[in-house]
């Protein structure tokens, strides 16, 4: 028995002793780190590049906590990802160099600048709604020396009471003398399709077959999170009357936007607030046929922490005067009062709207609650509610929504991205 045991040891030890060694020592049966630099100590952590000053205090203090600890590449790479997320930077590269003290290293996170793409192709929106069918929007952009020329196609049966399909083209100059001023020219040409319910409700002079819009706007950054846009919107639409007639809806447009974001989606959570107020005024001064004033205010608060994502939205609007149908407010689509059919609520759209929604996502699982009302006369105002659940990940959403009402409840199913 003892002989067998010794023979076993010999058989194992002999090849090990005879094996040719490399010019360094060989360690067997190691389960430790594979990166030899884990023995080194981080002397300091620095962040450089555009926007580094905007780094939040919690993340900055977390960075400084790495000093004095052993070099840990995966942890530092995760930190680089968090910097990238927080600053919405296109790239954050980690550079490691020898420190001043022996066996110490200095880690520098370099924030990259966005490389202007000469040619860009975007599928901006894609949606299937069980009541309204398919909607999609895509565009191609060519960037030449800070000038962006875009061309796109759209077919949307969700946002308005009509389905509009056609082409969009635009020119944008992002810096006009200063970073604070941008110019934009948009052109669109659409063909319209109408739902039976809308055709039954509408007056003959309300329905149009084609619509062409041209809209030059300027945007000024007043104070970093506060931006104001102003311009005009010239719209011409061909009515579906027996004697074809073209009308114009020319409006002065102005929008005030606020967007602030702080924190990161890591430990302390990221908060994001977007708010806007816009006014569109169709006036005889611009030779507009309908004269109206459309006010709309929107706000959205979003809180993200690790796998949780909470979003609270609010929308209110009012139209005074007689606006064309494409200016009227619609609820009951894939973004508002999900679960309701817009043609059941108001097939023509309405001149008043109030809407609120709460969305909560945990690990991609989505639940939401919507409430709101659209009306033209106060006596027609009726608050509606809906509930839904589904999944939401990286801009994709698939959900089923139910209107809260008595009687037969028919759920609405929708799937798509960026709506």
């Amino acid at each position, binding site marked *: 028995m003892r002989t067998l045991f010794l023979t076993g040891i010999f058989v194992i030890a002999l090849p090990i002793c005879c094996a040719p060694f490399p010019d360094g020592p060989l360690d067997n049966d190691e389960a430790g780190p*594979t990166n030899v630099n884990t*023995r080194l100590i981080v002397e300091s952590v620095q962040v450089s590049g555009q926007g580094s000053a905007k780094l939040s205090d919690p993340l900055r203090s977390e960075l400084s906590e790495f000093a004095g600890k052993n070099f840990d590449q995966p942890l530092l790479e995760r930190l680089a990802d968090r910097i990238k997320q927080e600053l919405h930077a296109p790239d954050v590269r*980690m*550079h*490691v160099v*020898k420190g001043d003290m022996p066996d110490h290293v200095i880690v520098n996170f370099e924030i990259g600048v966005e490389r202007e793409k000469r040619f860009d192709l*975007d599928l901006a929106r894609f949606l299937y709604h069980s009541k309204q069918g398919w909607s999609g929007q895509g565009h191609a952009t060519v960037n030449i020396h800070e000038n962006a020329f875009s061309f796109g196609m759209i077919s949307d049966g969700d946002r308005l009471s009509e389905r509009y399909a056609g082409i969009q083209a635009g020119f944008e100059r992002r810096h006009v003398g200063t970073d604070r001023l941008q110019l934009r020219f948009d052109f669109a040409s659409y063909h319209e399709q109408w739902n039976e319910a809308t055709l039954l409700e509408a007056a003959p002079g309300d329905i149009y077959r084609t619509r062409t819009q041209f809209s030059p706007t300027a945007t000024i950054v007043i104070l970093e999170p506060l931006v104001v846009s102003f311009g005009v919107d010239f719209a011409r639409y061909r009515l579906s009357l027996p004697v074809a007639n073209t009308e114009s809806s020319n409006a002065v447009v102005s929008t005030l936007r606020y967007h602030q974001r702080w924190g990161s989606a890591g430990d302390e959570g990221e908060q994001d607030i977007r708010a806007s107020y816009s006014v569109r005024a169709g006036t005889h001064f611009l030779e507009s046929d309908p004269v109206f004033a459309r006010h709309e205010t929107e706000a959205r608060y979003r809180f993200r922490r690790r796998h949780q994502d909470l979003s609270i939205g609010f929308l209110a609007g009012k139209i005074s005067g007689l606006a064309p149908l494409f200016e009227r407010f619609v609820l009951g689509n894939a973004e508002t009062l999900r679960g309701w059919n817009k043609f059941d609520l108001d097939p023509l759209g309405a001149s008043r709207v109030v809407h609120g929604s709460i969305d909560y996502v945990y690990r991609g699982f989505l639940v939401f609650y919507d409430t709101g009302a659209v009306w033209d006369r106060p006596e027609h105002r009726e608050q509606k509610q809906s509930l839904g659940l589904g999944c939401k990940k990286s801009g994709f959403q698939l959900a089923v929504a139910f209107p809260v009402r008595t009687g037969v409840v028919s759920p609405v199913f929708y799937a798509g991205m960026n709506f």
Partner: protein
Amino acid sequence: MRMRTIKPWWVIAAFLSGLAFAMWAEELVLSTQEGRLEFAAPRVHFLVGKPLERLRNASEVPFVFKITLWSGTRTHVLREVPARFVVSYDLWEEKFSVTKLVTPRRTARHLTDNAAEAWCLQEMSQDVTGISANEPLWARLEIRAEDSKESGLPFGRGNITDSGINLTSLIEIFSRPAATTQPHWTIETGPVTLDELRRGRRRG
């Protein structure tokens, strides 16, 4: 106007010089040592370029090695042996460390670049007991540096923005051949018999 034609001998010369260069550039050297087939590739250096750049930035770089052996005929695969190595570079000592990811792990430290490369090849040696001494053998060595997280998923964060799916990025990802995204080397040799290898060693 008279058309200039390319002389055939120019084509042959270009082909032969290309072939000679390829033979000089890529050479897999086989030898036998106590029943094991050993590999050497003195002219192939994989600790260069992008992988070396990453190593000198304190990152570890995984490499995948694969040995393929054919015996008898070129269509009969005797064995395919993959192995994974993780290389890192000590910024202060300026030496390489290599870990072979097997159970138990094997690590070699304080190596020069050439020694680190040689150690990986040495770890790929194959047991050839049972193979006839006169049987022709072919061998191929493939080395591939694995990408870090840069490889990019089709629907990764960078491709979906607030303005939708960026189709340009997706086209870039799908139009990139898989083989060219990662630094890779492939060298072959054969046919050769174990007998010839043993004789060659005695002569050497």
